[in-house]
């Protein structure tokens, strides 16, 4: 596992913190019942029972870029930072749609976001790492802040990914379909502000990632041949088996590196694929590590579906706004993605992040 621990030595003299988060959720909701009524074939699949997903948001006007820009603006506004302060801007989405379903390879989405929000002096590039993209971007930003290369980095992702569900609805025939997982997808934008922590602030304790590439072909997505947008083929059960087998060991490794026990964790935010997968995964972790975190795993997939690389931030904002994340709380973000990527980001909520809570009217 590539592990970067906040050690504050000459190689990484500074500590990073998550100073702000933001999200963009399209207003339109699509229930699982509505989606399943739209399938071309009579599938007899009770997707809501299988996944626990009641509904997801679908973008009708925004594209990937719009969602990323919306989340970036939300993040900066919540954190009280100016776009001109951003020195590094990384965009991490799988989908890079602008102007409808036109996927832009070049120029980068990061440069377009920087231009839209006025982050004119930021170094910009894109990172792609499937659903682990945003946390991979956070790991890169953490590294740059720790070394003093930049003081303030913005990691963004805009996923207008529900088009894969639209395409899958034409092809899924049974529960064995490899496009079944595409029906769980929803749209969202996410942004994370990573900046240099003040003296004595706990901040971001660890970012650890590994790629179990022997399973890299379990989930593949590419432009569709005869339809707009893309299609995704997923061997969901196989991925679930690998995740269940490998995550406890890697979480243990990450906790050991940070000098923590699983009981030190106040909140665990796993990648949101299905309610059942999250609960089974946490039961397995608890059995393997002999203890549980202080709170049950955070679940937002029931309301928003699997929003790809944005799930952790969508959930973080949800928890902050509900007042369930408090300064001093220890949080583990656990990534699981095609690749097969497994990652852990451990951080302590500081007052600045707690203050990002939206004030309800």
């Amino acid at each position, binding site marked *: *596992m*590539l*592990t*970067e621990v906040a050690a504050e030595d000459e*190689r990484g003299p500074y500590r990073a913190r998550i100073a702000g988060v933001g999200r963009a959720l399209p207003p339109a909701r699509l229930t699982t019942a509505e989606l399943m009524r739209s399938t071309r074939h009579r599938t007899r699949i009770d997707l809501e029972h299988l996944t626990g997903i009641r509904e997801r948001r679908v973008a009708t006007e925004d594209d990937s870029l719009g969602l990323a820009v919306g989340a970036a603006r939300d993040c900066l506004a919540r954190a009280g930072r100016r776009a001109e302060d951003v020195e590094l801007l990384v965009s991490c989405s*799988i*989908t890079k749609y602008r102007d409808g*379903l*036109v*996927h*832009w*390879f*070049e*120029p*980068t989405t990061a*440069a377009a976001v920087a*231009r839209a929000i006025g982050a*004119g002096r*930021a*170094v*910009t*590039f*894109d*990172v*792609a*790492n499937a659903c682990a*993209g945003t946390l991979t971007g956070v790991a*890169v930003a953490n*590294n*740059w802040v*720790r*070394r003093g*290369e930049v003081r303030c980095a913005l990691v963004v992702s805009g996923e207008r990914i529900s088009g894969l569900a639209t395409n899958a609805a034409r092809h899924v025939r049974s529960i064995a379909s490899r496009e079944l997982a595409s029906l769980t997808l929803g749209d969202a934008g996410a942004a994370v502000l990573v900046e240099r922590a003040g003296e004595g602030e706990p901040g971001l304790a660890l970012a650890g*990632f*590994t*790629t*179990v*590439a*022997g399973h*890299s*072909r379990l989930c*593949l*997505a*590419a*432009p569709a041949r*005869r*339809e*707009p*947008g*893309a299609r*995704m083929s997923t061997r969901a059960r196989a991925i679930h088996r690998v995740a269940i*087998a490998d995550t406890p*060991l*890697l979480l243990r490794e990450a906790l050991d590196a940070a000098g923590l026990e699983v009981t030190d964790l106040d909140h665990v935010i796993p990648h949101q694929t299905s309610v059942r997968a999250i609960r089974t995964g946490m039961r397995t972790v608890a059995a393997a590590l002999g203890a549980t975190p202080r709170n049950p795993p955070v679940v937002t997939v029931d309301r928003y579906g699997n929003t790809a690389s944005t799930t952790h931030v969508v959930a973080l904002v949800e928890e902050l706004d509900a007042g369930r994340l408090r300064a001093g709380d220890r949080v583990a973000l656990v990534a699981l*993605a*095609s*690749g*097969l*990527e*497994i990652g852990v980001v451990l951080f302590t909520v500081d007052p600045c992040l707690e203050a990002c809570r939206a004030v309800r009217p």
Partner: protein
Amino acid sequence: MPSVLESVTVVEGGRWRRGARRLAVAAARRALRRAGLTPADVDLLVNAGLYHERLLGEPALAALVQDDLGANPDDPHPGGHGTFSFDVADGSCGMLTGLRVADGFLRTGAVDHALVVASDADPGRGLAPGFPFAPVGAAVVCGRGEGTGGIAGFRASTGSPPGPTLTATVAFDGRRNRLTVTRPAGADAAAGALAGDVAGALLADRGLTPDDLDLVVANPLTAEFLGALADRLGVPPARVGRPRDGRPVHTAGLAVALEAAAPAAGLAGRTALLVSGGAGPAAVAALVLP
């Protein structure tokens, strides 16, 4: 401690080996061999190539390259090593951006060896009629240096206001999805001018001038780009490299230029400027010190 480039290799697509993933894997194998390493030694694998088989959007191509290389692909086990793989995308600046990301993890000691690959080729399946770039793969192995020599620093910029630029998009034309790459007149010149500004600023950071450089390694190797770069840096065009005949090399171009400029001795003991410009326009530069 600055990181160092331990080996650089380029593999050109032949008649039977044109897929971008295979080009990246072939280049990576050769680069690791030249560096005296095995795939299991790779801690971090970054892919900066863009156009590969089927234009897969996920997983990261780096994960597939890791699997094909046999770089710790197995399930983790106690005491295991592990490799972390992901892609960066920054057009023809991608390889330098990948090196910058790898350099960061090397500097903090999070990794001992990083492999940066880049390759592009026609993605096949009729996805990209008239695909404009030459099928080329490249790999660079980076490690932690022991002395003061190595990569001293980077600089990057995105043009503001934006000028004419290369664009690459996939869109549905009513029958199928197609990749369209447009390269308007003046795009390479705008990228070259920006690259010259970024490189000049990087040299100024260190109190250096172009006269202090033993070597300039530039990408893309087109006459327009190199001319604008040389003009902005205030050096004779011959100092920034010779234009390459045939279809342009895209993300792997920096390694092609590096092999052409320093085939045997590499960068050891030399002061070198690595500089790329591309879509946006955007530019990245790195300074290597002896």
